[in-house]
């Protein structure tokens, strides 16, 4: 490629009119080293581009990436382990809640609940209950009165007997 052609291409290049192929031609021209003095500054620019293209990641990079991707695939297992832990905690909470509920029920059984909400009805019922108790009590007293009569009669029978034995002794 003669330098005139290169100069024309370079002019196109500076104006942003070159195609990818023409830019490749320029790169190839400047890479071969034998560059006229007038084109030295452009040559250093193209040399810079070439040098930049050589920058690469270290070979160990691939291993680093594939390792982290594999770890990500294993992530499902880690998530399963987390689920098991969550289930354990949930079971613990459930046991505590159930125990609490049962204890509450036991405690509430010890205190009888109110059966009436209306005070008037409650009063009537209480009165009825007290009447029943007093009736039974009166009945019981009557019965107890009979026992008293028995006792008195027994005493009377016992006392003449005692007199008789005393009389016999004196005879």
């Amino acid at each position, binding site marked *: 490629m003669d330098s005139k052609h290169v100069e024309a291409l370079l002019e196109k*290049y*500076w*104006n*942003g009119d070159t195609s*990818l192929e023409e*830019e*490749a031609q320029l790169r190839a021209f400047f890479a071969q080293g034998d560059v006229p003095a007038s084109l*030295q*500054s*452009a040559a*250093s*620019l193209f*040399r*810079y*581009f070439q*040098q*930049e*293209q*050589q*920058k*690469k*990641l270290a070979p160990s*990079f*691939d291993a*680093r*990436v*594939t390792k*982290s*991707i594999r770890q*990500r695939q294993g992530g499902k297992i880690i998530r399963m382990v987390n689920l098991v832990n969550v289930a354990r905690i949930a079971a613990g909470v459930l046991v505590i809640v159930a125990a609490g509920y049962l204890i509450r029920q036991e405690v509430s059984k010890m205190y009888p609940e109110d059966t009436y909400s209306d005070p008037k009805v409650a009063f009537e019922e209480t009165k009825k209950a007290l009447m029943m108790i007093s009736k039974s009590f009166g009945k019981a007293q009557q019965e107890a009165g009979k026992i008293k009569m028995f006792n008195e009669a027994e005493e009377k029978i016992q006392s003449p007997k005692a007199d008789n034995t005393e009389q016999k002794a004196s005879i």
Partner: protein
Amino acid sequence: MDFHMFETRVLPVKNKLFRFATRLLGSQEEAKDVVQEALIKVWKGREQLNDVQNLEAWCMRIVKNLSLDRLRSSQRRPADGLDSHADIRQESLTPHETTELQESMKQIEQLMNALPDKQRQVMHLRDIEGYSYQEICEILEIDMSQVKVSLFRARQAVRDQLIKMNAYGL
């Protein structure tokens, strides 16, 4: 996409991704992290990849977005030529010539990194990676006219700077 496809179609693009991320971030270490992050992202989203026409441009776009996110979160501009340059050792050159060459490479790097963001990105994708205008549109998510204008301005700016450097005998 299975793992074999990932190894044969996505992993080989890694160096292009790395160079682009380095250009955006100005740090090779950070670029390495971003490329790894991008590749993992591609793998995670492999189910949707059937709709992607140009896988390489897709990967480049992910790298661009991740790099810009990083820059945004740390609120900084890419560091200008922070990293060391590739070792230029040519048998035919004397140590003096090698130093001179390294010096001029360094200057061009600084010159390119001093370009506005879009111009720098377009010039990198075209002149270093050899992408077509259409691919650059896809990667940078801008329209064709923006790509052409940015490339024109970038090359003009570089040309002006090179003329100035020559005028001062560099």
